[in-house]
Every structure is written in structure tokens, then in C-alpha cells.
């Protein structure tokens, strides 16, 4: 990418990474908010759309993320904000698995997600917020 003769390559990859982030984090948050009791009138099964959106966002960001990392590997590889970001991405992506199980198993009219789901939702919201923050700070703290 750095050797690419096109001045568009890097900004385009960066834009894709931002779009993927919006899909991934936005959709995850909306489901987390539902698990915390917002929009209770909508049955849990009404949130199944979240998983394909999150999956697409994750794949796009994995690919573009690797491309962005290669460009800065020497500085980012040992930078604390980057390691924190990676840790948080893994944690927040991991929370979606039990949440997914729970939502896919829910009955057609099931409204209550239960206490464990609320804890998972809080963990997911905090981890995604932290991951976005760490990613953004990467641009300011690490050259």
C-alpha cells in the first residue's frame, strides 16, 4: 500500500476501516442497549439482523486493519495504545458470541434477556468504546 503509485490507496483503506467500524460498533451497541432494556417492546428475535452486519464489519476491518498495520508495523507493534486496542477488540468481539447464542435461542416473543446478558452488554459497550478511543488516540500518541 505504501508503495502503491496511487495517492488514493491509503485514504480509501482508511475510509473502509472507518465504515467497517461504524457497522460493527453501531450494530453491536444497538443490541447491547436492547439487552439493557431499551426498546423492550421489540422481541429479542427482532435483533437477529445485528449479527450479519457485525460479521461484515469485522471481516472488512480485519482485512483493512492488517493493511494499515503493515504500513506502521515498526512503530505500532510495540505501542501501548495499539496493544490496548487489540486487546479490547478481542474482548468486545468475544462478547458477541454468547450474546448471539442467547438471541438466536430466544423464543419469538421473548422480552427479557436476563442478568448475564446485561453484564455481557455492559462489557461489550465499554470494550467497543475503549477500542474506538484507543484506535483514535493511536493517531495522536504514536507517530
Amino acid at each position: 500500500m505504501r508503495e502503491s503509485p496511487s495517492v488514493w490507496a491509503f485514504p480509501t483503506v482508511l475510509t473502509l476501516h472507518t465504515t467497517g467500524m461504524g457497522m460493527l460498533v453501531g450494530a453491536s451497541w444497538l443490541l447491547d442497549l436492547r439487552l439493557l432494556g431499551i426498546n423492550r417492546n421489540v422481541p429479542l428475535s427482532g435483533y437477529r439482523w445485528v449479527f450479519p452486519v457485525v460479521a461484515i464489519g469485522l471481516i472488512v476491518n480485519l482485512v483493512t486493519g492488517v493493511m494499515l498495520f503493515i504500513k506502521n508495523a515498526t512503530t505500532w507493534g510495540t505501542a501501548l495504545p495499539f496493544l490496548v486496542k487489540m486487546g479490547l477488540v478481542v474482548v468486545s468481539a468475544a462478547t458477541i458470541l454468547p450474546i448471539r447464542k442467547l438471541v438466536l435461542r430466544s423464543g419469538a416473543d421473548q422480552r427479557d434477556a436476563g442478568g448475564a446478558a446485561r453484564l455481557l452488554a455492559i462489557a461489550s459497550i465499554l470494550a467497543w468504546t475503549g477500542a474506538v478511543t484507543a484506535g483514535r488516540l493511536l493517531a495522536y500518541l504514536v507517530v
Partner: protein
Amino acid sequence: MNLAHLHLIMNHVPTVGSVAALGLLLLGYARRNEHLKHVGLEVLFLIALLTLPVYVSGVAANHELRNRSDISIDAVRIHQDVALFGFSWMEFAGFIAWAALWQWRRRGRAAKGMVPAATLLLMMALVVMGRAANLGGEIHHPEILAGGTPAPAGDPNRFVTSAITQVAVYSHWAWPAAETIHFLGLSLSLGVLLAVNLRILGAMKQIPFADLHRLLPWGMLGFGANLITGMFFFVGQPAQYTSSAPFYWKIIFLVIAGANFLYLTVFGKAWGPFDEAQGRRSGGANAPFHPNVADKAMAILSLTAWLGVLYAGRMLPFLGRSF
């Protein structure tokens, strides 16, 4: 033509438009006509939206004209400072108007106090905008100064715009913090708008449209966070943006996307028939949804505009000069 011309073309929109919206709202009160109030709120929202390019082009005009000897830079700066207040009141009124329209669509009427609140905020915006317009006129309409009174000189250190620039330039954490919030707000808005528009386009058919549509206020929350942080960037470091092509694309996309958001809000098909027992429109599976070609075209326009906002914003550091 430069951006000063654009500002001169557009600069009457906030004042004249506010008068029109206020007239509709007051007429609605006088005639006890809810429909007139509804239209008044819609006009108010659109005027609040159009106030954005007016403010932005005004700052650009300032940067183009500041070195000319026949223009008093103090008059420009006072005008800009008051205009920022007018802009803020106007956006506040626009958000309240949007919330009232949302409740209207959902429950058949706005919550108590919302429409009067929007009306009062609009009056406040109109007063401040009127003052800003007057001060703007003094920049290059010497005939208004017939009495010979010079434009009141302000202390540059006491301008709000200058104070914001100080924070943006000298604070180590303010800019990164605002950038972070800007990205979080982006995620929230994009998540909601993708889901709603893709559903209109035929994805996720098994989910009732109303169940997605009811998430719109969360999208608006993200947008509000991004308007505030975005204005912090612009007011803090205007020179980064006033001569930046992607920034103007971003504003154009934003206006299109905002108008589309209004369409989506008052969208008649989003909810089922009004349910007397529940006191609101029926949602969920009781609200069959059949989008037509026009609805789908609007959804495509919406997605294009929002992705355009995102792309142009992300390109700011590359095609423009911002960081």
C-alpha cells in the same frame, strides 16, 4: 464566484426562514390547527439544517476577506461571534423540533411542552440571528451606518470563537477527545441508518420495519454528538477547512442526508394505524410495510449521502489540510 458570494446568497435563509417557520407555528396556535404547527416544525428543521452552510460559508468569507483594507476586521469578528450564538440556538431549536416531529409520528401528538419549547427556542434564535445579520450588514453596507456610529469594537480576547480556538490549539486532550466522540457518534448514526435504509431496500424482511424505525432517535443522538464535536473542530481551526474541497462536499452531503432524515422521520409508512387503546400507532408485526420505488430511491440517496459524509470527512486530511 467565491465563498463570500455563497454566503451573501444564503445569508438571509436563517432570518427569513425563521420568520416563516415562526409564522406557521404562531398561526397554528392562533387557529388551533395542529397541521400548521407540524408544517412549522418541518420548516424549522430544514432552516436549522441550512443554517450550517450559511455559518460555514461565512467563516470562509472571513478568511477570504480578512486582509482587505476596506473591511473592518473587528466588524467581521463580532458578526462571526454573534452568528455562532445564533447558529447554536437555531440548532437547539432544530433538535427539539425533530424530537417533537418524532413523537408526533409515533404517538399522534408531541409530548406536552415540546412544541412551545421549539417555538420559544426559535424566537431566541431569531433574535440572535437578527442581531448577527445586522452586524453582518455593517461589514459592508456603510449606508446603514448613516449616523456615523462605527461598528462597536470588541476585545478579541473575549470572543467565544477565539476562546474555542485557544482550547483547540493549546489543549493537549481536547482535540483527540472530540475526535474520539466524533467517531463514536459516527458509529451510532451509521449503525441505525444502515439498518433502517437496508430494510427499506429489502434486506431483513422478517423483521418488522417499525422495530428498526424506532431506533432513529439513537441515530439522532449520534448525529447531535457529531454536530457539536464537528463544530468544535471547525470553529477551533477554521483555516483547516475553509479552503478544503472535501469539507464542502461533506457539508453538501450533510444537507442532503439531513433532509432525508426528516423524510424518514415523518415517513407515513413507518408505523401501522393509530391504536386508540394504546394511545399510539401500532408497531411490530401489526404494521405491514410495503415500500415503493420512491421509498427505495430515497433509501439509496440516504445511504449515498451518509457514506459521502463519511468518505469526505475521512479524506479531509488527505485532500484538504486538516489533521
